[in-house]
């Protein structure tokens, strides 16, 4: 459960500033590392800033969601949510300029499918991707291990869907004054959709998000759940904290707005110039590096075989030498 999970240990932050700080640090580290040849005053011009990165990531989060919605066979919601989680977590400590989001996006979805036991093979998976499928599957499989490593192998994600079910059961059982709780569901689903585009999943517990969604839905459907929350669910001392959390989640979900196409297009152009070419599968550097790695493997294999052959020869010599001295003809 969540209170003892790696999610709570490593991937829940105290507030939005915390996350922003981390992102700024990642951004500046990348610029420090790769901007040696760029004069200091041109750096802002050349590289993406943290906020620009955010805009791009928001765009790609939407892309991820749309990709999953169009996915054949239809993908269950927890899988989508897990993939989004991975995507967010990955870009906390990695810059957009280092790894292109469009590659990490599909890798996240692929890994999410595996972890959430939504069974698709890689060929089935890339059938959903437009363009060169072989290249896509190469990219996914190459990036999969990197992604897992960057997630620190904390692959279990607690999503708010089951807590929503639990709350619904609890409401149906203990809050009988509410008629037809099922009418809340469409609103809850809407709200959760939006929550996943915010950073609140990196700050709040899934059960809190579920509660916020339920309360939001109740206000939308003009249902009254206040008595249930204040009297049945919580004792007085915990109430202020929870109300604050719910308020915050709702306000965060309110200000989701998709970035405009023009902005995204210009940012992508900028990204193409400043991205780390070593991680671009189309670049010469990347190809060179891959080739080097392959050669190195070959070389290592060759060395290994050479050594084995040598050992064998030595062994033979030793054995034969002994047998010679033992044989009567040698005497």
């Amino acid at each position, binding site marked *: *459960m969540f209170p003892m999970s790696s999610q709570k*240990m490593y991937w829940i*932050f*105290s507030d939005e500033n915390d996350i922003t700080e981390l992102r700024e640090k990642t951004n500046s580290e990348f610029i420090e590392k790769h901007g040696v040849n760029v004069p200091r005053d041109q750096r802002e011009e050349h590289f993406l800033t943290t906020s620009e990165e955010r805009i791009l990531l928001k765009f790609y989060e939407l892309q991820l969601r749309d990709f999953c919605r169009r996915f054949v066979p239809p993908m269950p919601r927890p899988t989508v949510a897990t993939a989004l989680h991975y995507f967010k977590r990955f870009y906390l400590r990695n810059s957009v300029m280092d790894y292109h989001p469009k590659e990490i996006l599909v890798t996240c979805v692929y890994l999410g499918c595996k972890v959430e036991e939504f069974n698709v093979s890689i060929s089935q998976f890339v059938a959903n991707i437009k363009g060169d499928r072989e290249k896509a599957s190469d990219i996914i499989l190459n990036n999969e291990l990197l992604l897992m490593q960057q997630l620190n192998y904390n692959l279990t994600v607690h999503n708010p869907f089951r*807590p929503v079910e*639990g709350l619904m*059961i*609890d409401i149906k059982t203990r809050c009988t004054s509410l008629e037809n709780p099922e009418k809340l569901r469409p609103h809850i689903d809407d709200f959760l959709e939006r929550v996943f585009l915010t950073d609140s999943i990196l700050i709040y517990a899934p059960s*809190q998000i579920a509660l916020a969604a339920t309360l939001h839905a109740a206000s939308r459907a003009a249902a009254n759940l206040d008595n249930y929350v204040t009297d049945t669910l919580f*004792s007085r001392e915990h109430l202020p904290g929870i109300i604050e959390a719910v308020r915050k989640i709702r306000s965060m979900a309110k200000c989701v707005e998709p970035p405009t196409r023009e902005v995204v297009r210009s940012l992508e152009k900028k990204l193409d110039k400043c991205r780390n070419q070593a991680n671009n599968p189309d670049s010469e550097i990347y190809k060179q590096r891959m080739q080097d790695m392959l050669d190195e493997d070959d070389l290592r294999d060759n060395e290994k075989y050479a050594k084995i052959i040598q050992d064998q020869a030595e062994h033979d010599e030793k054995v034969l030498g002994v047998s010679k001295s033992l044989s009567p003809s040698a005497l």
Partner: protein
Amino acid sequence: MDDQICPRCKTTKYRNPSLKLMVNVCGHALCESCVDLLFLKGSGACPECQIPLRRTNFRIQLFEDSMVEKEVDIRKRILRDFNKKEEDFTTLREYNDYLEEIETIIYNLANNIDVIETNKRIEQYKKANKEQILKSKSKLGREEYELEELLELEKQQEEERKLELIKQEVEMKKKKIREKEALIDELMFSEADAANIVETFASTIQATREEAKVVPVAKVTQFSTGIKFGRQGQQTFMPVPKVEEGPTYCYKRIEQEVEGPHPPGWQEMESGGYIAHVRSEKPAEKAGGFKSNIACLRALQEAMAGLYHNPSQRPPESMAI
């Protein structure tokens, strides 16, 4: 012995002195080379009675009459299961009846008298006395093992004794020669009376001989007691292999932190009516061991877990990647 003949290839002991006849459970003999030929694949049918046989069950015929061989084989098999001892019965009469029954079964099987009925009887007995058989078997095994060890020990002691005797004999011979030489020397060079010298020598030899006689007797008693001691010593157990062990494992219940309102437990779920709001499991799910109350409990637990979570309270631990 010379009329030993392989029923298949008609080779006789006379023509082939190294002929070895083998028998299997059915009691029909075959020579070694025929067995090799027929049972190349490990199993096959007996050429005489067509009973399917395994090659591994073939063994060298000990008795001339293969019927005896068969009987011995059956007896061995039957006694493996009918392994009760006299101590297991309350009266002698019962024990005798039991022995009688075993003999009947063996006779029946060896002479093919209602085999099916008899086999059924054996099965029945086996089923009824499963535990008893197993227990006696292990006891028997232990006893056999002990006996073997005893024999081994005795053999060893016998050998020792033999060696000792030979050594003593050699010693004795040497001693005699030495004594003779000493006597002759004495007679040659001494100026004392010859008869006197001979007498003293004879008396000393007598004395040493008596002494020597006492010693081996003492040794023999030691041997016989040694066997007795050995018998007590047989009760040793197989040495227990030593395993490096840390502190023993101690079960501790996993404490599930809830960090929220306490979710209902198994009982409350039924009594509180929570279960009514979950769809009941399908037969296929039930077969897999999933019941609706598991899903219900988990949903409720997850809904409550972490509700009191306060993000500003604890900064996440820094993580090195």
